[in-house]
């Protein structure tokens, strides 16, 4: 039986694991119970700064602490990180201060809260900021490992986590996970599916369905969107000759765009982009949202066949 877990729990665990580093501090905006920074708060209240429901202030308190030698981890819902975009831009990215921002509850998979809470543009907006590393891991293990690598990064980051549980892929495989390096989960030569976040497991399901039809797909977990792993893209283009991207994010500006930017500049191949079709979400269960947004395994498999037909 596959273990199920939410990526936000991996984030919460990582903060605890990082606590031995006395420079690590946690900043909250009244959503610690949701983003899972609450575990750190309980154990290390002196190093947890409550910023109330004030995301703009939170990010720049983080900047001031980073400039003073601390390693701040700030979290809120992905959607609310966006209201502090200019703080991230001018106060963090521009002076290259290593504040690590985590946006939980990203994507339409967040579910029944509806469209106001379903960030579908966070990866796109933070990807445009110089100096900022952008990640969207797919399970609690990789979220924990990537988060624990952040203090050594020395530059700001944005990581999206998800509210709901998804299959755990990396139990016992912690050593394979590294910021900036995509992970090949399955090798096939007909088409390559490049996915992030909750759609990685959907992509594996799509690959199984394709295999039953005699189509062998490569599946890549591209947990880091920026910097994008161009070498891996080149490798799968050479092997497969056709690509699909899959993300629970607007089809504009996220993983699909990052892969497309690399392809057109380096190594052209047909690309089909599975993502939220430039529309806002609505209330629904996580699995229902994947169908409504046309980003479930079924749609990924359809896109794979279309990409192959364009070779």
């Amino acid at each position, binding site marked *: 039986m596959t273990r199920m877990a939410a990526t936000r729990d991996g984030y919460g665990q990582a903060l605890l694991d990082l606590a031995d580093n006395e420079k690590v501090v946690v900043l909250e905006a009244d959503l610690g119970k949701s983003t899972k920074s609450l575990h750190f708060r309980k154990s290390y209240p002196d190093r947890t700064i409550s910023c109330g429901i*004030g995301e*703009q202030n939170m990010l*720049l*308190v983080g900047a*001031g602490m*980073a400039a*003073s030698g601390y390693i701040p981890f700030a979290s809120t819902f992905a959607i609310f990180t966006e209201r502090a975009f200019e703080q991230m831009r001018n*106060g963090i990215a521009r*002076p290259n201060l290593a504040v690590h921002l985590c946006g939980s509850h990203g994507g339409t998979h967040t579910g029944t809260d509806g469209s106001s809470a379903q960030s579908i543009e966070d990866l796109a907006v933070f990807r445009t900021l110089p100096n900022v590393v952008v990640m969207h891991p797919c399970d609690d293990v990789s979220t924990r490992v990537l988060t624990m690598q952040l203090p050594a990064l020395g530059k700001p980051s944005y990581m999206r986590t998800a509210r709901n549980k998804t299959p755990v892929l990396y139990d016992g495989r912690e050593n394979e996970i590294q910021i900036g390096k995509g992970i090949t989960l399955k090798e096939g030569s007909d088409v390559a599916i490049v996915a992030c976040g909750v759609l990685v497991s959907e992509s594996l399901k799509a690959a199984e369905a394709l295999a039953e039809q005699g189509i062998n797909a490569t599946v890549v977990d591209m947990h880091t969107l920026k910097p994008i792993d161009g070498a891996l893209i080149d490798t799968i283009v050479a092997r497969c000759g056709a690509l699909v991207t899959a993300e629970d994010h607007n089809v504009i500006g996220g993983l699909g765009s990052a892969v497309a930017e690399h392809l057109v500049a380096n190594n052209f191949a047909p690309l089909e982009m599975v993502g939220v079709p430039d529309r806002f979400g609505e209330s629904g269960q996580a699995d229902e949202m994947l169908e409504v947004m046309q980003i479930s395994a079924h749609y990924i498999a359809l896109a794979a066949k279309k990409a192959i037909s364009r070779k």
Partner: protein
Amino acid sequence: MAKSISELEEIARKCRVEIVKMVHRAQAGHPGGSLSEIDLLAALYATRMRVRPDEPRWQDRDRFILSKGHASPGMYSILAEMGFISHEDLKSYRVLGGVCQGHVDMKWCPGVDFSAGSLGMGLSFGMGCATAARLDESERRAFVMIGDGEMQEGSVWEAAMAAAHHELGNLKVILDRNRIQNDDFCEVQMRMFDIPAKWKAFGWNVKEIDGHNMTEIMEGLDFLEAPENCNGPSILIAHTIKGAGISYMENNPSFHGAAPNDEQFHQAMVELGEVDA
């Protein structure tokens, strides 16, 4: 650190000369807010700031955050006076590759602790510096200068609330209350009503002074440093005149962000006692 009132006034006068020269040379920039803040900056840097100009990144230095980062000529002039940068560096104001970027920038200029230029950000950053100092059990303080127009940014009040909640006695704000913002007088653009009452209501220690009277400024800085006012954050509301010291700039919204022409420049140098009429 001991300086007489007349010595401080002379430092401020020299800074005013440099401010006008910088803006005139660049034919761009923000003289009005630089001239309104400069008496405060001169007194703060010359008598209070625990800094090492030859070691600008010294970890235990007091931090100074110019949140109204467009008023950079004022800050550059006092940094040059203190020896963080040279007077030659002042010629790089707004010039490609220059340490004196248009708005103060910590990546470009020694002695600058925060990359400002977007209003409503410096107080939050100062709160972060003050929080870090507390965790470090350091005596260092965070001084933040904000503008009055800037208080229209909602993020200022997020920070004001949070700093009081956390009882950050090492956070000291100076408000340059010059009554003019980019487009017009504050009273026209957005009335702010009882400003001291607002800060008091947010839990701050508050004192008002004349921001061009050096004796009052020193009393105001004493207030910020007084042990009885270190139970929480404090703000010094300094009533100032935009463009102070140059007659045609004073209280003139046109000189928020405009440079003097050659004739006006000459007149300014005369008024500042640099040249004969």
